[in-house]
């Protein structure tokens, strides 16, 4: 027998898509039955009270969580999002309902052993509810009480060999696309670079030392499966130099209808037979592809590596062999100054595991040194770039100026020059001027 009536939420049990309401209810039932005989460390009816407070929000059209909440574990300045219900008498099971962010493996591959261990820990000491995963990438353990935080952290580190993720004005949990683990497009090992930098900058992740939050994301190619260009302050998008690798026999197989275009992604639509001219040549953004006499030709010097032809004919075309990553800086959501996508800072850098990615770390640390000094309180690096200029960022990163860094040159003539760069400097005497020009 459910503790609270939830007539509104009950309507979200029907329909085909997996119902979170049904799932929370099954968790509530499992806790009530308690077949394992656990001595639950937070109220057994926590999931039922969550449904209760959510039903109340559905009636009121307003959230019932109090503002903020500052909790955590000793040694760290983040990792836990504190939360308290604003109706604790009605819903004591969620009076405390803190979220713990748990660092996830790059690419989100798991063994059932690991997930079961996390579930066992969370069953006993938390609500039994999770998010798989938070938008930034963390495993999100949703709902526990303050006294359990250190206990969970102790078990997590001592028994599961795993750390918390990030929150606050610091380096947040980095995330990567699945990269080389199961994709033929990956131009570098996104997961390894993600793991390496996460470990390298553990201090920056756990102890907020920045003006505001800062995120890394790692995409293996310009398709952007982890959305690095939109959702990270420094986004790494794999790319290549030189020629796209072409297998002309496979091109012929596509033209002959033996292989479905785009790996069969449009199979349920009525799009007719594959037309290489219409579907590849004509919509190449740089118009650098031609198909003549049964041969596909690409003028690679004009290619912008948008991935369209490769995506459309993955068995015939592959990225070039000289591979690395581009680095984009400054993506953020609208608050405060408007949304930004990452702007191209470094067109190409090698992803070199042999020297522990030093070239990439130099760029990261250059950007951080500058932004930590110049960034205002709660100013994302994207906004610091807008305030102090893209040139300041380029100099901070220690990389050369490059026309690739702009979509177009400026159209206003409000150009700053430094005194040292101008012949004769800026120290001038009005009397000299008057000798040539009467008042």
């Amino acid at each position, binding site marked *: 027998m459910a503790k609270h009536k939830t007539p509104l939420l009950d309507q979200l049990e029907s329909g085909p898509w997996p119902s979170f309401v049904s799932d929370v209810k099954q968790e509530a039932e499992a806790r009530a039955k308690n077949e394992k005989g656990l001595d639950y460390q937070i109220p057994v009816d926590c999931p039922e009270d969550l449904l209760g407070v959510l039903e109340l929000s559905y009636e009121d059209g307003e959230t019932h969580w109090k503002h903020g909440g500052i909790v955590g574990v000793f040694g760290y300045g983040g990792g836990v999002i504190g939360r308290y219900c604003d109706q604790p008498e009605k819903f004591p099971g969620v009076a405390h309902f803190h979220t713990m962010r748990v660092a*996830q493996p790059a690419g989100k591959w798991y063994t059932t052993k690991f997930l079961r261990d996390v579930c066992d820990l969370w069953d006993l000491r938390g609500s039994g509810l999770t998010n798989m995963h938070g938008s930034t990438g963390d495993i999100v353990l949703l709902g526990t009480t303050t006294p359990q935080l250190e206990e969970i952290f102790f078990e997590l580190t001592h028994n599961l060999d795993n750390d918390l993720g990030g929150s606050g004005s610091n380096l947040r949990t980095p995330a990567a696309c699945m990269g080389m683990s199961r994709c033929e497009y990956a131009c570098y090992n996104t997961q390894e670079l993600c793991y390496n930098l996460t470990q390298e900058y553990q201090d920056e992740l*756990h102890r907020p030392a920045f003006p505001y939050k800062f995120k890394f994301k790692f995409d293996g190619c310009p398709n952007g499966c982890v959305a690095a260009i939109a959702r990270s302050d420094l986004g790494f998008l794999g790319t290549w130099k030189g020629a796209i690798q072409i297998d002309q026999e496979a091109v012929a197989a596509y033209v002959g209808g033996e292989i*479905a275009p785009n790996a069969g992604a449009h199979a349920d639509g009525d799009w007719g037979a594959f037309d290489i001219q219409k579907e590849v040549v004509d919509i190449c953004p740089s118009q650098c592809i031609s198909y003549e006499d049964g041969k596909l030709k690409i003028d690679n010097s004009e290619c912008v590596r948008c991935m369209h032809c490769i995506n459309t004919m993955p068995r015939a075309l592959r990225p070039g062999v000289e591979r690395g990553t581009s680095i984009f800086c400054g993506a953020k959501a609208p608050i405060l100054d408007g949304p930004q996508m990452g702007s191209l800072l470094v067109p190409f850098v090698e992803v070199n595991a042999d020297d522990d990615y030093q070239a990439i770390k130099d760029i990261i640390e250059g950007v951080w040194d500058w932004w930590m000094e110049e960034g205002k309180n709660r100013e994302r690096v994207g906004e610091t770039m807008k305030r102090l200029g893209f040139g300041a960022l380029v100099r901070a990163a220690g990389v050369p100026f490059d026309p690739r860094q702009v979509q177009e040159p400026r159209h206003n003539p409000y150009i700053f020059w430094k005194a040292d760069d101008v012949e004769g400097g800026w120290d001038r005497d009005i009397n000299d001027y008057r000798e040539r020009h009467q008042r």
Partner: protein
Amino acid sequence: MAFISSGYNPEKPMEGRITDIGPQHFDKFLPPVIKNNFGKWLYHEILEPGLLVHVAESGDKVYTIRCGAARLMSVTLIREVCDIADKYCGGHLRFTTRNNIEFMVETEEDAKALKKHLNDQKFDGGSYKFPVGGTGAGVTNIVHTQGWVHCHTPATDASGTVKATMDEVFEEFTHMRLPAPVRISMACCLNMCGAVHCSDISILGIHRKPPMIDHEYLDNLCEIPLAVAACPTGAIRPSKVEIDGKSFKTVAVKEERCMFCGNCYTMCPSMPLSDKEGDGIALMVGGKISNRISKPAFSKVVVPFIPNEPPRWPTMTKTIRKILDAYAKGANKYERLGDWATRIGWERFFEVCELPFTEHLIDDFRDPAYYTWRQTSQFKW
């Protein structure tokens, strides 16, 4: 409920503490076929909705079955996922960047058996537990946020709006019949956690009333200059009020300059603004992240307000359906929703989607707003 210690000693909190170990190395979790062919994949195919095969240089194949998930999930459900992975996949699985679940097997036969098994699993309420799909040119899972389940600043709910929307577009999750993939995202306030600023269709919680001010508490709970600095339009200034003969330091909000972003409440608990009638949803369209053919693009606001209608948000889901249908009918193969709207012109987009155009949709935020107006005589009647 007796307290059970983990071994942590609150008397000596720093003793035996392990820190800064980060996540585990992903290598520990890879299935053998993935580990053996890491970085050596040749090509892939989508065999049917939700079922992919990747072929390696060695000739090895791995079949992936992708299924939907609600993101908010219980340990009971995760354990069911583990049972399936133990039975079919040697104890391995992964989650995608859009919070779907992927199971990997090594033969097509096993893949089809697993697909059937996944589609057979249902909750007591009748919904699928693990609907297979989310591949190719269809609608996949909705990246979303906390809503009324956990957050203090939302203007709507996340899990509810997402369930209602996915029920409406479910056929597109299990089919690949659209011109290109359609990414739908959801954020419950305009902090825009997640991907609504860069998705084909975005659901965004918005407010329409300025904050209330809890004058008697504000100075005790808030750093006033931070609340002032939190306002993108400069609507907030420090102020003093007198209540029952007592003077309080507080803030004043110039209401005609407030566009209800809620950022001051994020910084100052004494400025709440949520409101049943005022709050609701804006719809945005035309964003993308990939660099395929066209550049990445922001989503644009095309519906300024739809009321919150829990539990199923019918006006919102019907409007999304209408946009999706117009796109499916009008766009060329490979054309993302934003590319289609740009090609036909936004005036035509509003016409074919039967959406009213209102003043709210014209940008008026600072200098860049000018660049969104039309400085050409080129337009369609």
